[in-house]
C-alpha cells in the first residue's frame, strides 16, 4: 500500500491541480491577513471558509483523481498488488497531498505574520485539524461515489450534490425540524443530528472554541453537559474519526468486489 501511496502522492505533487490548490490557500491566507492585519479575525474568517470549501475541494478532487487515474489503477490491478491497497493507497495519496496543501498554504502566511507569538495559535491549530479531518472524510466519500459510478458525469454530479446537501440543505432541514418541533425538548435531537454531518461536527468544534459564551447561555441540561465539559469536544472528535473510518471500510469492501 505504501508503494501505491508513494506513487499516487508523487503523481499528485506534480499535477497542476495540487499547485492550484496550494496557491489558492496561500492567496487566501495572505489576502485575509493583508486585509485584516489581525490574526484572530483572519482565523475566524478562515474557519467559516474552511468548513465549506475544504469539503467541496475534497469531493471534487477525490472524484476527479479517481476517474483520472483509472488507467493507473488498471495498470496496477494487473500487477501483483493487493486490490484494497491500490485504492487505499490512492485515497491516502490524494488526502495527504490535499491536507499538505492546506497546511502549507495556510500555515505559511500565518507563520510569517507571527502566529507563534499570537494567542490565536490554538484556534489556528484547531482550524488545521478540522480542515484535515474534512479533507480525509470528503475525499473518502468521493472515492466511494466514484467506485459506485463508472459514469464520470454522474459521479461528479453526485459529488456536488453530496457537498451541497452536507453544506447547506442538511442544515436547512435541521433548522426547519427544530422550529417545527419547538414544543418538545430538543437538545438530544439536535446534538444527535450534528453527528450525522461531518460539516456540522467540524462546526461544533469551532463553536466550542469561538462561541462557548453564547452556547452556555442556553438552559438545556444536555447542552450544558455537551458544551460545558470536555464531552462535546471528545464526542465531536470521535464522531469525525468514525466519519473517516466508515468510508474507508466501504472502499475496502467495495474494491474487493468491483470489476474493471
Amino acid at each position, binding site marked *: 500500500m505504501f508503494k501505491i501511496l508513494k506513487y499516487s502522492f508523487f503523481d499528485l505533487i506534480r499535477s497542476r491541480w495540487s499547485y492550484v490548490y496550494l496557491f489558492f490557500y496561500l492567496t487566501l491566507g495572505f489576502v485575509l491577513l493583508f486585509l485584516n492585519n489581525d490574526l484572530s479575525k483572519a482565523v475566524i474568517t478562515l474557519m467559516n471558509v474552511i468548513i465549506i470549501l475544504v469539503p467541496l475541494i475534497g469531493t471534487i478532487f477525490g472524484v476527479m483523481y479517481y476517474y483520472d487515474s*483509472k*488507467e493507473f489503477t488498471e495498470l496496477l490491478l494487473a500487477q*501483483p498488488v493487493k486490490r484494497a491497497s491500490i485504492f487505499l493507497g490512492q485515497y491516502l495519496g490524494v488526502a495527504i497531498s490535499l491536507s499538505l496543501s492546506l497546511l502549507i498554504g495556510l500555515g505559511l502566511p500565518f507563520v510569517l505574520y507571527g502566529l507563534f507569538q499570537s494567542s490565536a495559535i490554538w484556534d489556528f491549530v484547531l482550524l488545521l485539524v478540522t480542515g484535515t479531518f474534512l479533507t480525509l472524510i470528503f475525499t473518502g466519500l468521493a472515492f466511494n461515489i466514484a467506485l459506485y459510478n463508472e459514469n464520470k458525469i454522474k459521479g461528479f454530479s453526485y459529488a456536488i450534490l453530496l457537498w451541497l446537501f452536507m453544506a447547506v440543505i442538511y442544515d436547512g432541514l435541521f433548522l426547519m425540524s427544530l422550529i417545527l418541533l419547538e414544543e418538545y425538548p430538543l437538545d438530544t435531537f439536535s446534538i444527535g443530528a450534528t453527528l450525522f454531518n461531518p460539516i456540522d461536527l467540524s462546526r461544533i468544534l469551532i463553536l466550542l472554541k469561538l462561541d462557548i459564551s453564547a452556547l452556555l447561555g442556553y438552559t438545556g441540561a444536555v447542552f450544558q453537559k455537551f458544551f460545558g465539559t470536555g464531552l462535546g469536544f471528545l464526542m465531536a472528535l470521535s464522531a469525525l474519526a468514525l466519519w473517516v473510518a466508515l468510508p474507508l471500510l466501504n472502499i475496502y469492501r467495495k474494491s474487493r468486489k468491483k470489476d474493471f
Partner: protein
Amino acid sequence: MIHIENLYKSFGKNKVLEGIDLSISEKGIFAILGPNGSGKTTLIKSILGMVIPDSGTISLNGNSIKNKWNYRNEIDYLPQIANFPSNLTVRELIKMIKDLRNLPGEDEQLIELFKLSPFLNKKLSNLSGGTKQKVNLVLTLMFDSPLIILDEPTTGLDPIALLHLKNLIIQEKAKGKTILITSHIMSFVEEMADQIVFLLEGKVYFKGDIKTLLTQTNEPNFERAIANLLTEQNV
C-alpha cells in the same frame, strides 16, 4: 497450468461469459479469438483477477486464484489500451513497475530494441500511440514470468517494431512459457499461434490447432476458417 471451470460472468443484464471450461496445460502460444463482445477481454481479466466472476473457478497451477494477488507475480500482462498515469515519465514508470514487482527486470535490452531511449525522460502524456504501445511492451516483457498474456499486442506498432515483437514472442516461447494472445490481425495469429481458442456467446466454441480448425471447417485457409466459424454462428 490454467484450469477454468464453468465460468459465468454478467455485467448487469449483459451476459458475457456463460460457462467457460478451458484447460491449458501445455506450453506454447494460445490465441484467444472471437467476435467483438464474445468475452475475450473479460476472460483474460478474470484470469488476472480484475473481473470477479459470478461463479465458476479459475486455478493456476492447481491453486484457486479467488481473493489472491500473489499469483500475479507469475503473470506478465499487456493491457489492451495503453493509458498510463500522465504525470510520470517513461523512466519513472518502468522504475515504478519494477519497484512494485520487487524484481530487477530486463528493461535495458528492450528499450534499445524499441529505440525508446530518447523518450525516457518524456512524460507519458506526450507520447504517440505507437510509442506508448512500445513502452507497454517493455513493461510487460521485461520480467521473466511463466505465463504471458498479451491483449492486442500489435496495436499501433510500425512494421519494424512488429517484427521485433514477433521475435520476442518466439524467444519467450522457446524459454518454455505459456503465452495467451488476443488479436484481430489474422495473419499475425496464423503466424504465431500453436493453438486457437475460439469464444462464441460466452462459451469456448473451438479449441485446437490450426490444422484441426481447417479440417473441421473444410476451408482452405485460416482467415476463411475463422469467417466460417463466425457465419456458422449466424446460421
